[in-house]
């Protein structure tokens, strides 16, 4: 089915471990985004990508790494997880149109760092 999928849906990891959150979309959308959702902060942009091999930092990029070797995949890696990275992470994508290309979200990954 077409859409955007994130995996895993839930993840528990320990402080200092590396963890990768996966995101895959089947629309061939150019733009992809990673947001984190925290109470009182809404959704904040971590990283985004305008196309394969083009990525840039968002509002809260520290401690995260992204890559985009293929248009459809946009993994987010926490190099050394910290408790402050406990959050719900959303991947999103959109096409190159303007108003008629709204953002489509995955179902989120709830990450707990112990």
């Amino acid at each position, binding site marked *: 089915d077409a859409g955007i999928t994130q995996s895993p849906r839930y993840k528990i990891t320990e402080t200092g471990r590396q963890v990768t959150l996966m995101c895959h979309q089947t629309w061939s959308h150019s733009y992809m985004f990673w947001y984190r959702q925290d109470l009182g902060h809404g959704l904040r942009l971590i990283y985004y990508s305008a196309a394969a091999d083009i990525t840039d930092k968002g509002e809260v990029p520290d401690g995260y790494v992204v890559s985009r070797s293929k248009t459809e995949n946009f993994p987010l890696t926490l190099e050394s997880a910290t408790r402050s990275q406990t959050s719900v992470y959303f991947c999103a994508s959109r096409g190159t149109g303007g*108003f008629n290309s709204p*953002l489509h979200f995955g*179902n*989120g990954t709830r990450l707990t760092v112990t």
Partner: protein
Amino acid sequence: AQTVTQSQPEMSVQEAETVTLSCTYDTSESDYYLFWYKQPPSRQMILVIRQEAYKQQNATENRFSVNFQKAAKSFSLKISDSQLGDAAMYFCAYRTELNYGGATNKLIFGTGTLLAVQP
């Protein structure tokens, strides 16, 4: 930088009644898009309604409508005939219309309003 403010952390409405969620934003741009997203307990982000800034006519989608006041930089969401399924977190979001690079395509979110619907 653009900011989005939702001043109501929580709201409550009786089933079948009408409720209005507030959103204000700050920008120096003249062309942009505004959105309302709904997030039910399932965590899924669902687009409810969207508005182009250059259109004076308020957007409407079934029971959902907006009151867009460009000069006041206000974008409130009205839910009519509220249903139990409307209970969710609602996020207001802003996106610039300018299309240079990926940065300007990012969505800027408010902190959300949690809506409870009482039977």
